[in-house]
């Protein structure tokens, strides 16, 4: 009797064998899944979108200076805190200092301020000039939903001579966990009692109304597409996307712009580090020193683990960022950090080892 077609048998067996072999290989790959580590000469970071424009320059300059590639994913301060807690990155970045809870969960993390800039309050009103005037109370009322139209008297009386349209105000906020939100809402806490009791401050809050967007770039995106919108992001984003931003009234009674002068003045408001290196410079007190201070400034922090597998690459990079890196800041409206902050950073860095 003629046997079965051996060629077809072989094909069928080969196909099945291949399938099984291939899944075995796949299983081996999966089983050997050690934690992904950056190779030598590479650093991985993630976190706040606030400092991202400056970090991008640092990535460029540091690679050409030292040959080390740094990658940075701007996923928001919350994402940065989660990433460093989960050990998925070498460094995290957050504008909101870690809470005691977060330090506990991070288990062996330190933070140090490495960037200093301002949160601008941007608006999309074609036909109106840049740097219109506004106060913290008005901003809070807008985000609370108490002021709904641009031609509200509370806005127009701050800007005599300008004609505001009868348009709905669309507040834009960060939908992701954001240190910029923390900075902005911390400011609103000091400017409006109702905001403080009803909403409070945080990286994510219960926004009473408006549209959410991911990242500072997302907020700028919605703003550029929506007439009558108001939003907040690091001043670098407002400038990059040619968005107009407000001059905000400070406690000294002047309307200050988020520029290098305003930021420098504001940084004088807090020179005393907390036990975890945090500094708060929101809404500086009245006084000659703070005449020109912009009220919504903040430091941004880099988050490191005291035990870092990549410490040999990481420490030089952070040191460089604290010192040489600052020179690239002013063009993007990042004020170079004061000397005592650099000193504190270097001291903290000594605690990092591999």
């Amino acid at each position, binding site marked *: 009797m003629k046997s079965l077609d051996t060629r077809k048998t072989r094909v069928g067996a080969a196909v*099945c064998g291949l399938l099984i072999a291939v899944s075995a290989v796949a299983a081996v790959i999966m089983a050997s899944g050690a934690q992904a580590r950056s190779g030598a000469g590479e650093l991985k970071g993630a976190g706040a979108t606030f400092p991202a424009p400056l970090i991008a320059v640092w990535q460029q300059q540091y690679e050409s200076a030292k040959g080390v590639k740094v990658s940075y994913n701007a996923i928001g301060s919350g994402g940065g805190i989660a990433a460093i807690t989960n050990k998925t990155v070498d460094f995290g970045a957050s504008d909101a200092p870690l809470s005691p*809870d977060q330090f506990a*969960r991070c288990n062996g993390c330190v933070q140090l301020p490495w960037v200093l800039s301002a949160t601008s309050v941007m608006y999309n009103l074609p036909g109106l000039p840049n740097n219109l005037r506004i106060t913290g109370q008005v901003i809070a009322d807008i985000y609370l939903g108490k002021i709904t139209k641009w031609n509200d008297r509370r806005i127009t009386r701050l800007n005599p001579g300008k004609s505001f349209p009868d348009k709905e105000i669309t507040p834009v906020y960060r939908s*992701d966990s954001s240190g910029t939100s923390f900075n902005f809402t911390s400011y609103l806490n000091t400017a409006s009692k109702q905001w403080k009791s009803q909403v409070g401050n945080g990286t*994510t809050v*219960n926004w009473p109304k408006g*549209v959410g967007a991911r990242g500072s770039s997302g907020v700028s995106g919605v703003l550029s597409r929506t007439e009558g919108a108001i939003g907040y992001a690091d001043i670098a984003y407002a400038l990059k996307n040619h968005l107009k931003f407000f001059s905000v009234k400070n406690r000294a009674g002047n309307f200050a712009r988020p520029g290098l002068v305003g930021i420098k003045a504001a940084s004088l408001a807090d020179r005393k580090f907390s036990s975890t290196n945090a500094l708060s410079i929101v809404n500086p007190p009245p006084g000659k020193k703070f005449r020109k201070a912009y009220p919504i400034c903040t430091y941004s922090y880099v988050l490191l683990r005291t035990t870092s597998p990549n410490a040999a690459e990481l420490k030089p990079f952070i040191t460089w960022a604290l010192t040489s890196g600052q020179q690239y800041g002013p063009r993007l409206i990042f004020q170079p950090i004061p000397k005592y902050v650099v000193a504190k950073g270097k001291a903290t860095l000594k605690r990092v080892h591999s």
Partner: protein
Amino acid sequence: MATASRSVPGPAAFQRRGRVRPGDAILYFVTLLAALTAVVLLALIAREVLADAWPAMKAYGLGFLTATDWDPNKKLFGAGTFIFGTAVTSLGALLLAAPISIAIALFMTELAPGWIRAIIGPLVEMLAAVPSVVLGLWGILVLGPFIVSTLGPAIHGSLGWIPIFGTEPNVGSSMFAAILILTIMMVPIISSICRELFLGVPQELKEGALALGATRWEVVRGVVFPYARAGIAAALILGLGRGLGEAIAVTQVIGNNVAMPTSLFEPGDTLASRIASQYQGADYAIQVSSLVYLAVILLVFSLAVNVLAQIIVRRVAGRHRVS
């Protein structure tokens, strides 16, 4: 749907003559393991997701389903707004997609001559192949501005007295945009299933009605629809399931708002969209847990919808096999 070949004897058969052929046993067990993978995966998914949601479930209980706060500061979380958003966007899209899809299926089975059918059929199926992130991109940069400039004011102007169109369409990101995008995603699914159903209506029934002098539409209304009724229901439910679970395109165009929207032109949020936008950076452990709780609710909804559709489909297939 094809039926499995059943005349081949089961596992007992290769133990005939008291001798188990090793090759048969190996193949049997290897394939059995593979087949059990689906069950194992489902069990794993259920377990992991429930385990991570448990802290929030314990803290908030079932009240989570109706609470509308989402306040990480005060540690108050609730799924109410998102369940509402999911329901409104999915059902709203289904409301638009159902008549359109059924009409398309009718067009392709009853009206169109063969050559048109051959062109339009693949085109409608291609719509299903457009990835959701691309539809979302189009939604942000094309549909959104169009709603703000043209479509929204037209609807608000003429129908603004109805509360759901009551506010001005200022922003491109809104519930309305999400509904339109979901409709585009649902139509290909529903219409392709309906097309198969309508093709399966026995020719004799239709010819009989035509012979009695019925118009084409009367044949459809009197013969096709009653015959395919259950299948159409299953198709709609499967389409709904698609809308419920869509995270990416929705989160791109819906505006991620926490407050309960009062009109379709306001931004809102759905279960899937909230998970997508907040999960990566969730702060407190209870917030992470609450987001996974949202995932549990979403999972329950989609499973319920899918199982319901599958039951209907199997019952319809059974009934039609008998007849």
